């Protein structure tokens, strides 16, 4: 009998479209801001991802078939499998956090990685999102390097045990001199966790160390 993970992997291989020999990720982007949707769409397309963008959590759930209808798995109503969900945190109606919870509570959708995007650098908020199962918390404005890193992570994570991979990834990132923006709360990867940097918000250095300690477990 197949485990859920095996079914997920098999479905992924069946449904991921191939473009120039490499599979294309399909990302569902959720943001109430038209400006931000346009930017994230471009960031994703330029990174060779397919994008579907919606303006609210409710629409996202409708697209994923989780709004009361029988769940079709992580296949959108247009038949395309969703490999990653990127959602804004602050949205009217359903927040990104609430959307995250609903996805993680769903037996059919919980395997889809969810990334939260927010203009606000609030440690308790970040913690809450990561604890609820968010893959990453990106501080806006989202950059090309963020998308590239996410894409690499998702592509590498397929077919492996996602739990172990995630921990391995975070450790490896911690070894690098340039740390990812989302984890270390820095506005510039090269200056991550450098207390002497003037670009760092004053609260960041302590936030950095506590975040790192947590993730290295």
């Amino acid at each position: 009998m197949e485990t859920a993970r095996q079914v997920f992997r098999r479905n992924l291989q069946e449904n991921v479209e191939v473009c120039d020999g490499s599979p294309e990720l399909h990302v569902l982007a959720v943001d109430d801001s038209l400006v931000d949707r346009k930017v994230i769409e471009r960031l994703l397309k330029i990174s060779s991802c397919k994008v579907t963008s919606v303006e609210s959590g409710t629409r996202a759930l409708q697209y994923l078939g989780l709004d009361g209808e029988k769940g079709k798995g992580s296949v959108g109503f247009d038949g395309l499998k969703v490999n990653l969900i990127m959602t804004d945190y602050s949205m009217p109606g359903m927040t990104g956090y609430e959307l995250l919870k609903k996805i993680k509570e769903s037996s059919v959708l919980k395997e889809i990685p969810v990334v939260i995007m927010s203009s606000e650098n609030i440690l308790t908020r970040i913690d809450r999102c990561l604890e609820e199962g968010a893959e990453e918390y990106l501080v806006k404005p989202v950059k090309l390097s963020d998308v590239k890193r996410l894409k690499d992570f998702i592509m590498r994570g397929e077919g492996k045990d996602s739990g172990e991979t995630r921990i391995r990834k975070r450790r490896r990132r911690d070894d690098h001199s340039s740390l990812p923006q989302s984890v270390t709360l820095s506005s510039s990867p090269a200056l991550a966790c450098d207390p002497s940097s003037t670009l760092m918000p004053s609260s960041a250095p302590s936030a950095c160390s506590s975040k790192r300690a947590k993730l290295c477990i």
Partner: protein
Amino acid sequence: MEVGQMQSRLADYTKSLFMEGILDAQFLQLQQLQDESNPDFVVEVVSLFFDDSEKLLNDIARALDQQCVDFKKIDAHVHQLKGSSSSVGAQRVKNACVAFRNFCEEQNAEESRRCLQQVKQEYYLVKNKLETLFTLEQQIVAAGGSVPMIELSF
């Protein structure tokens, strides 16, 4: 004016916007997302930003004019404006929004009105500057030249 001169003028103009803090690195990021397949990307995003901002500024002004000022609603609008200005690299607008939100939190109507004026000022400034920048770009393209990528060291 020949193309080379136009290009220098554009480069100097763009650099001045960064030096004055009107634009920040996010604007450069947007330029990097533009290519032959999406040659009008920056203009398109910025146009959305203009439309969005003007609507928000009107909504905020109207809310501040009410007998009973709804600070929560105003804060939500300012938050949105802060987000979109940040996404296009309109740094001074974003900073003005940050200050504005503090007064919303304090529920200070008088200071909020002052902040609105400040935000509007910064908004119209960046709008003016960007429209000039796009005009300079158009002139170069019309003369058969290409718009150079700005390289700045921060």
